[in-house]
């Protein structure tokens, strides 16, 4: 356990070294926050209470999305490309001989990264949004801690999905295609484009049950107070179930993949 904590800390530190890149990312998230916020104001002016949100809640959704974009790696990039490169080059064989669990190792590193991005790229955009617009941020510390836990579960689900994507490299070697599809699905089904509660009819209901909903939509709804009491426990359980199921799937796929690893001599 101490080992994985150290890995998480080094993941945090590694990303903390990119200061200019972090500042540039904060700037970009803030600019996008403004653009999308204005389009949402126009949309909610036209249809108040769309998707069960009032305008302040819809705007809060926008800025929470911008704050969680980097921690959840919604736009691609991240550890999976590094892992795919190790699989492609064969370095993975060395990793598999190490006395650590491959999945937990990468999970720890990714949690460290997400923690840094939450602090480095999350707080400022949300703060700017709160200054510039009328947001529905809660004053209740209990709701903030529930949000924090929900974000943690969201990051684990995001990791577990990307781990599955990364393992595809064992069969495909070149991960570019699956990575692209993964980002495409993520952008659409997390609620990054529009809150999933706005998606109409049966399609909307289905979308809200998929694992991507556990990444962004659920944490945002927790912060907005859409789930309280037993419903809150239900929402967190929904995330936890997807996290466990996807991590287990990752393990299964990993053992399938490693049983076919052939270490080339040389």
């Amino acid at each position, binding site marked *: 356990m101490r080992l994985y904590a150290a890995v998480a800390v080094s993941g945090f530190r590694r990303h903390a070294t990119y200061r200019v*890149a972090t500042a540039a990312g904060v700037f*970009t998230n803030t600019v996008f926050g403004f653009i999308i916020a*204005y389009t949402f104001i126009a949309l909610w002016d*036209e249809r108040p209470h769309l998707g069960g949100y009032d305008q302040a809640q819809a705007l809060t959704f926008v800025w929470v999305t911008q704050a969680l974009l980097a921690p959840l790696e919604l736009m691609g990039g991240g550890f999976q490309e590094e892992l795919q490169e190790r699989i492609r080059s064969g370095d993975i064989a060395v990793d598999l001989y190490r006395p650590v669990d491959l999945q937990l190792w990468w999970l720890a590193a990714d949690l460290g990264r997400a923690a840094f991005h939450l602090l480095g790229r999350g707080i400022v955009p949300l703060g700017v949004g709160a200054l510039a617009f009328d947001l529905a941020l809660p004053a209740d510390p209990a709701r903030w801690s529930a949000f924090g836990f929900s974000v943690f579960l969201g990051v684990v689900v995001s990791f577990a999905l990307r781990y599955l994507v990364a393992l595809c490299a064992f069969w495909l070697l070149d991960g570019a295609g699956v990575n692209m599809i993964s980002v*495409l699905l993520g*952008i659409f089904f997390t609620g990054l*484009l529009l809150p999933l509660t706005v998606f*109409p009819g049966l399609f909307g209901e289905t979308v809200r049950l998929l694992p991507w909903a556990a990444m962004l939509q659920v944490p945002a709804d927790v912060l907005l107070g859409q789930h309280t009491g037993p419903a809150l426990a239900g929402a967190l359980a929904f995330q936890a179930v997807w996290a466990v199921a996807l991590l287990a799937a990752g393990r299964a796929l990993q053992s399938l993949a490693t049983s076919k690893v052939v270490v080339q001599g040389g």
Partner: protein
Amino acid sequence: MAEVSVRHPDSGAREAEGPLPRLLHGLRAYGLIVAMWVRSTMAYRMSFVMMAVGNFLTSGLDFVAILLMFSHIDALGGFSLPEIALLYGATSTSFGLVDLFLGNAERVGRRVRDGTLDTLLLRPVPVLAQIAADRFALRRLGRVVQGLVVLVWGLARADIAWTPVDVLLVPVMLLSGAGIFAAIFVAGAAFQFWANDASQAQNSFTYGGTTLLQYPPTVFSQELVRGVTFVIPLAFVNWLPALRLLDREDPLGLPGWVDFCGPPVALVMIALSGLAWRAGLRSYRSTGS
């Protein structure tokens, strides 16, 4: 001992006098590098097709979001779906063209960091041409096609009283829009000589700009509209010409001739970004490692 000539066959052009021969030399070099990357992409044809389709779909997601919005509403900021499609298609096409031809200029920061920019400086080819053609990705045609499809649909469905001037305005809009985006790409690349891991900031102006322009100006605050008209003149990419096509007031109440200023605005911006690029390249100090 015979003198060994290491003169590059093209090196004569480097000494070529005058801006025009140098420009032609740069363009020729650009074409050669692009052709090389296209050939290498076509080695994996299936992969190329998948990536191009992926590019088409990814860039289309924004429009899917707009379609989803219009499943709840009839107008956004007073604009109908075909009118927004026109705005969306115009900016998406201009941006897509620049993303195709210059999209990898943002890699210059990485090259500064890892020192591979030095290699480019040694070659008798303008650095900008090499940077622009670097890893040229033909799959980005997907975005251009997607933009054009939405644009044509918007033009056909929106209520436009076509005049000969309007017909001419459409290609002028697309090309001057591309010129403005190209200037932003080059200026952003130049900025990375100073802040070499800030390529993300460029996205605010490129992807952010095109996202902004997908929606009608009535959606945004006056200050924002003023900012993208007078400070970073993105409004000339599509807002001003498209408002003329749609016969709508521009929200700042500017005189009508401003709608036709896209080409001169693009030329001035390209000239300024060229100067920024030169200044950046001059200030470049190799990592030396």
